[in-house]
């Protein structure tokens, strides 16, 4: 009896296990194997593996793509979360049309990124786009957006005669366009999650704070924020990983691929280019391994340094 039970257990997970082993586990082993070659594990791929990694560490385009990704994540994640908490806070009360607002804010989340990239590319069009047209109404000179390789800090510090370059020039205007779109796209999801977090705050906490005469900001800082900090922590992690994996907008919106002077080339796009445009599959594996390590460290880092400041009830 128990033997037959054992057998059916394996049988039932077999289809799932097979797919997982062939299309997840094995590919990951392949990617990891590349890294061991670097430390001199014997095998026919030894020299190739070593070459891939040594090439990676001196590849300026790889560093540029990492730098771009860094700025992209550092801008997208906090902006999205702050704006989302603001709107979630507004929605966390009895007001008419609450459901309708939620529906509208969430709408971009279910929309395909390819389609919204096409539309935002049109919005950002430097000559005919509605964004520059709106700027025109207010007498502001339009930007070249997706064609503009100048760094944001470079522009901001120009009046002070400081000229940061490379990484320190910050995200380019072109990358800023992608950042704006990403914030717009992700707000809905974060609002819903933040709203769920806010609904955990017991109503009497607010009552008590109000009776004590605390200001709105003080209530938010000392009552709301500590209670929703696990939610924020969760959002920071998931949004960082999500932003780190961004590919589609770079592919659809930027011309030449990777943007002006490569300033919108995010690391996943660089991997794609190496693997499937230049067919350097081994080299792409090395990039993939670095991506894996960074995402892993990212989660660990956030666990250690942010979780300490998170208040769990």
């Amino acid at each position: 009896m128990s033997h037959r039970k054992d057998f059916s257990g394996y049988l039932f997970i077999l289809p799932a296990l097979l797919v997982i082993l062939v299309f997840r586990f094995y590919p990951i082993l392949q990617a990891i194997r590349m890294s061991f070659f670097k430390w001199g594990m014997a095998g026919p791929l030894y020299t190739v593996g070593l070459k891939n990694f040594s090439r990676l560490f001196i590849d300026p385009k790889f560093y540029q793509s990492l730098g771009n990704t860094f700025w992209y994540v550092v801008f997208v994640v906090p902006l999205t979360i702050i704006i989302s908490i603001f709107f979630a806070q507004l929605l966390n009360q009895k007001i008419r049309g609450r459901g309708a607002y939620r529906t509208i804010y969430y709408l971009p989340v279910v929309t395909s990124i390819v389609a919204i990239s096409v539309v935002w590319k049109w919005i950002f069009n430097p000559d005919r786009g509605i964004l520059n047209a709106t700027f025109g109404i207010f007498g502001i000179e339009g930007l070249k957006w997706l064609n503009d390789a100048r760094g944001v800090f470079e522009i901001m510090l120009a009046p002070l005669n400081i000229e940061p370059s490379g990484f320190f020039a910050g995200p380019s205007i072109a990358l800023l366009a992608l950042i704006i779109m990403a914030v717009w796209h992700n707000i809905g999801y974060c609002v819903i999650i933040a709203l769920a977090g806010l609904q955990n705050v017991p109503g009497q906490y607010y009552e008590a704070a109000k009776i004590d005469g605390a200001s709105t900001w003080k209530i938010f800082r000392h009552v709301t924020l500590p209670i929703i900090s696990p939610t924020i922590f969760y959002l920071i992690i998931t949004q960082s990983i999500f932003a780190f994996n961004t590919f589609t907008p770079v592919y659809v919106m930027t011309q030449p691929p990777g943007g002006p002077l490569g300033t919108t080339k995010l690391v996943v796009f660089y991997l794609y280019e190496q693997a499937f445009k230049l067919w350097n599959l081994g080299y792409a594996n090395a990039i993939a391994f670095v991506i894996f390590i960074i995402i892993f460290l990212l989660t660990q880092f956030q666990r250690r340094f942010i979780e300490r400041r998170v208040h769990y009830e």
Partner: protein
Amino acid sequence: MNKKFPVHILLAIGAFWMLLPFFWMVSTSLKTQMEALRFPPTIFPQALMFVNYLEAFRQVDFSRYFLNTIIMTAGTTFLVFITSTLAAYAFARLKFWGRDQLFMLFLAMMMIPVPVYLAPSYVILSRFGWIDTFLALIIPWSVNVFSIFLLRQHFKTIPQELFDAAKIDGLNHLQVITRIVVPLSKAILITVGIFQIVSNWNAFLWPLIVTHSDSMRTIQTGLAYFAQAESTNYPLLCAASTFITAPLIIMYFFVQKQIMESYAHTGLKE
């Protein structure tokens, strides 16, 4: 004046910005190319060029792309239902050696970001000779660990008495699944299904990599291709974007709660 008035103003401004790109997409899709290129632009189209939608369908084979997407979505969703239900049942209800270790292995696979296994997966698929076929679009995604996880959680809550009764009636495991477990898990299965539909409909990177020929394009890779081929014809591009997003947006209005739930569960979007 209502004291909630400022709140409404702020929320309305937010809603305006969220909707603006959608409005602009539909508005542009109905303009002539001449009108679309006018600067400053007209807010509403002067003549409603519904013909743009037909023209977009004529220029590239969107009907084929829709068909491919439907086949891919139906295939993966169907297989995910089967693999997840069976695996979740085994993990939740059966005892076998190494069960918990295997489950941990499954969960660990979920933590791996997609870019990490793109290149190796491609090599495997080409060794199988699956590149540019539906097999490459469907089989690697026929298992969804998160669905297994969700279903397992749910199956554990089904009362033991039901299983005991089924045993007395002499039902085998498959009969238990089809007659007891599945009928009691409709809501969660719908969540799993909706998540599959949304993520397949919007899938881009994978189809882009594993298919090459025009006849194998999905709507997303098809739109990206169209956007490169017709990079300045914005009315046609917006028309295509509209009819590609419309099915999901319509579905969204009906099953909004489930969609939000399925995303809240998974956290990560691909």
